[in-house]
């Protein structure tokens, strides 16, 4: 997991730029982002909303074409969706007309492969969904839906798992539970994970490195190593080191915005409510 051990990064992003052509003109979403993800590493990408996090992840997955720059998987440039890359989307993204089993079978159907039943059963048990195969997405809670989506993404045994704000819609307790689940799965499989999130706590809990993107257009602003051992206990997460790191990242993201003017406005607001 040391940079020196891995001369070729698992996933290399080189000077990635992305321009969207919209009706109201061109929009530069990503501006020369460069970022290496090493094998077996968990890297989180955080940043203000609309900073191009999802764009970066969709580009890494091959779903979007970069306007310039390139993405390399094991040193080979990728030009489209790659079987070695799995994605977990925002809001589970299960197909509502299929039950859980059929949802997990979906990638195999597309590829025309036979599902690896033993592996799927293992994954379902791992995330605590054994026995739910016949249920439809609407019959499951948000957390269970997202667990099913993780199983679906891992069913094809990808070597890289891209997670696009997977737990953003969940309540904070479920979210912590899901974070522990991701850690467990990682300890199990050592799959390389790129994780996009709004939550700095989540990023620190999960990651070996946290990459901070600046606001639009997205650029890599800063990068932090998270040196804490795994599994990361609640005690570790409550230490001053974690607290300080959280604050530093928070300052990177919102620091410039929290000007005194805003504070004054907020103060005035409070006074108005009181009077």
């Amino acid at each position: 997991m040391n940079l020196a051990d891995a001369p070729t990064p698992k996933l290399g992003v080189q000077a990635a730029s992305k321009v969207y052509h919209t009706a109201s003109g061109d929009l530069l979403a990503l501006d020369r982002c460069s970022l290496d993800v090493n094998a077996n590493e968990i890297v989180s990408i955080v940043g203000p909303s609309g900073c191009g996090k999802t764009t970066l992840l969709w580009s890494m997955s091959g779903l979007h074409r970069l306007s310039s720059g390139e993405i390399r998987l094991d040193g080979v440039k990728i030009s489209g969706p790659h079987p070695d890359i799995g994605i977990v989307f925002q809001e589970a993204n299960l197909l509502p007309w299929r039950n859980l089993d059929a949802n997990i079978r979906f990638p195999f159907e597309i590829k025309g492969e036979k599902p690896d039943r033993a592996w799927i059963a293992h994954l379902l048990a791992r995330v605590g969904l054994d026995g739910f195969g016949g249920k439809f997405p609407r019959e499951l809670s948000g957390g269970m839906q997202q667990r099913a989506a993780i199983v679906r993404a891992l069913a094809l045994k990808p070597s890289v798992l891209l997670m696009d704000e997977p737990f953003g819609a969940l309540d904070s307790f479920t979210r912590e539970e899901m974070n522990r689940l991701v850690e467990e799965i990682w300890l199990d499989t050592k799959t390389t994970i790129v994780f996009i999130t709004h939550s700095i706590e989540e990023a620190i809990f999960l990651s070996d490195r946290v990459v901070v993107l600046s606001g639009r257009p997205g650029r890599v602003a800063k990068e932090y190593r998270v040196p804490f051992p795994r599994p990361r206990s609640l005690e570790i997460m409550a230490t001053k080191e974690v607290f300080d790191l959280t604050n530093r990242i928070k300052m990177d993201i919102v620091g410039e915005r929290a000007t005194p003017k805003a504070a004054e406005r907020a103060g005035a607001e409070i006074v108005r409510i009181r009077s």
Partner: protein
Amino acid sequence: MSDAIPEFSKAKAGEGHEVGLTNLSAFASGPGIQSGKEVAAIIAVAVIIIGGIELALRLFQVPLYIMPPPSSIVYALWDEFPLIAPHLGYTLVELLSGFAIGAVVGLVLAAVITQFPFAEKIVAPYILLLVTTPMLALVPLLILRFGFGYTPRIIAVALAAGPMVMINAATGFRRVDSAKIALARSYGASTLQIFWKIRAPMALPMILVGLMIGAIFGLLTAVGAEMVGGGFGLGNRLTTYSSMIQMPQFFAVVLLLSTLGILIYVLFFLIGKKWASWEA
């Protein structure tokens, strides 16, 4: 190829005010009876209404040619059924063949056209024209051209049903959920696979609505076309019985037609419940 900005709208597909077969308000309040009490209440109300009509018609000695009492309608249906049955058969042949043609053409057109937004813009006004024009108006013309047989009626039914199927199916096919398509694409799905595994199932609830409306419009058109001219079909029976002032027989045919309409509705409701209930 230009990519769209990834969006995850808060209003997910299938939520909110979309029309699906199983969340039409008429359906929502329709089947789904809870208890024996409810069944008893429904039957009691029906008995009171039908019995009340029967009683009132007999009490005020309303002449048979103005409004026959329900009992005489049911009796006429029973008595005349051997005579009416072949005509029911003719109407069903017209309805089924016309609907099949219209539905297939409508579905294929909807599926193809929604893939090409520009073509859709060009075709849309004509479809709207077909939807809003009562195809019955064309029947005399069709009869002139094709004679008094099945052909003009089947064409009319197809013309009435097809656009209804198409316009609803197109609404269904237009419901693009970019996240679900991205999911399929991330596994390397082809355009055809995306169509069959994502677009078609997503469109299914609206397709069923279209098929149901199309079938009911087809029935209306078939009966109307039979009333315009020709010697067979339930529509022909209606004109015949009314011209002979055989009102119980006339209403027996009306009752048969209502039953047919309700059967179409129930059929599609059951199909929707089985295959498209995920939306509700």
